[in-house]
């Protein structure tokens, strides 16, 4: 299966920024500094469970709830 990582990242950024472009950009940088390089993941990226877990953990730390 593929594409789940990008969907999760997009959902995290959308929830956090609520459509605010400036907050969305900052959130992408926050993810990069936490070790998640948003640019690396596309709809074709494999569903790596370790990366998925990391994103869910980061979302939890940000107080967000991602649906897997």
């Amino acid at each position, binding site marked *: 299966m593929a594409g789940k990582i990008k969907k999760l990242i997009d959902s995290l950024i959308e929830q956090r920024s609520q459509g*605010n472009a400036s*907050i969305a*950009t*900052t959130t992408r940088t926050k993810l*990069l*500094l936490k*070790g998640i390089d948003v640019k690396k993941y596309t709809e074709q990226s494999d569903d790596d469970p370790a990366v998925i877990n990391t994103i869910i953990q980061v979302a939890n*730390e940000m107080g967000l709830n991602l649906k897997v």
Partner: protein
Amino acid sequence: MSVQVAHSQHPDPYAAADELRTTLGELKPVLVLFFASSSYGPDGISAAMKNAFPDSTVIGCSTAGEIISGSMLNNSVVAMAMDTDTIQNVHADTISLKSPDFADDTLSRLAEAAGSTPISLDPTRYVGLILFDGLSGAEESIMERIGDLTNIQVIGGSAGDDLAFSATYVYLNGKAYTNTAVFALIEPKKKFDIIKTQSFCSLGKKLTPTKVDAASRKVIEFNGKPAAVAYAEAIGVPYSDAASHFMKNPVGLMADDEPFVRSPQRVEGDAIYFYCQVREGVDLDLLSSTDIIADTQKMLEEKNKETPIEALINFNCILRTLQLKQEGKDAAYGKIFSNIPTIGFSTYGEEYIGHINQTATMLAFLK
């Protein structure tokens, strides 16, 4: 009146604070920010500054060199005083660096004092200013936690001790602290801007950390090879010369073509220790230094054209200061800020979104 800056090189902390008070005249500041050489005892300078400004929130830290409009200084204390024309409100408190969880309590308290919660604070209305104990090694975890909690921009620096690497201090309202950060939630009266400038360009070569010890800021392998070997190959120099290129060829995490610089500190075995954390699997670009003076001048001119700057707080990396001194350009750097009320200091690390190196992060209050 609004904003004024002053400096003193009097060696006695109380005499220095009195000189600052006299220079700042009739201004009734709500916030006094000061940066003091480690030649001043921490308890003495913090108490003296609060004594001189008893009705103000007084925040500061020790330095590895100070900056005032027009000059880079040593063995001095520099201060910026802001009254209600510039600062609507300020709430400040300490964060213990024993655990990132301590950031939760402090931010909740400060946001509550502003009638809000950390996540609800309006990023266009509030800015966070943070000063770290520069030898704590806790900047990354605390900045990440703060970034989890709030959307406001947070800027600051890590305290220095004039390259002794022995003890650094942060100051709040007359007290001195170690293993602590001071966080100020500032509501400027007018608009503000964050400036982040580093004088590097990407060489287009990637170094991917494939084995790291993040807690000790150590990279064991780049691209599956011993870190120092891979770095030397990427630069194109013999292994033995690798460390001599660290200052001019650090690496950077690229966010929208904007490097978040990670500076190598030393080689130990074949591993490279950095001045901030490097994450496994996240590509780093090899960087090459450009002209700090020209880059900073250009950036300030552009910002000033957009909206004139009323005052500037400059957190300038000690590695930039050392490079400027090596190149005999420290006086020229100070002069860049001659026409803008500015204070700053040479830091052991800069904060903006995260912890970064070889960068100047600046908080600009706009007219």
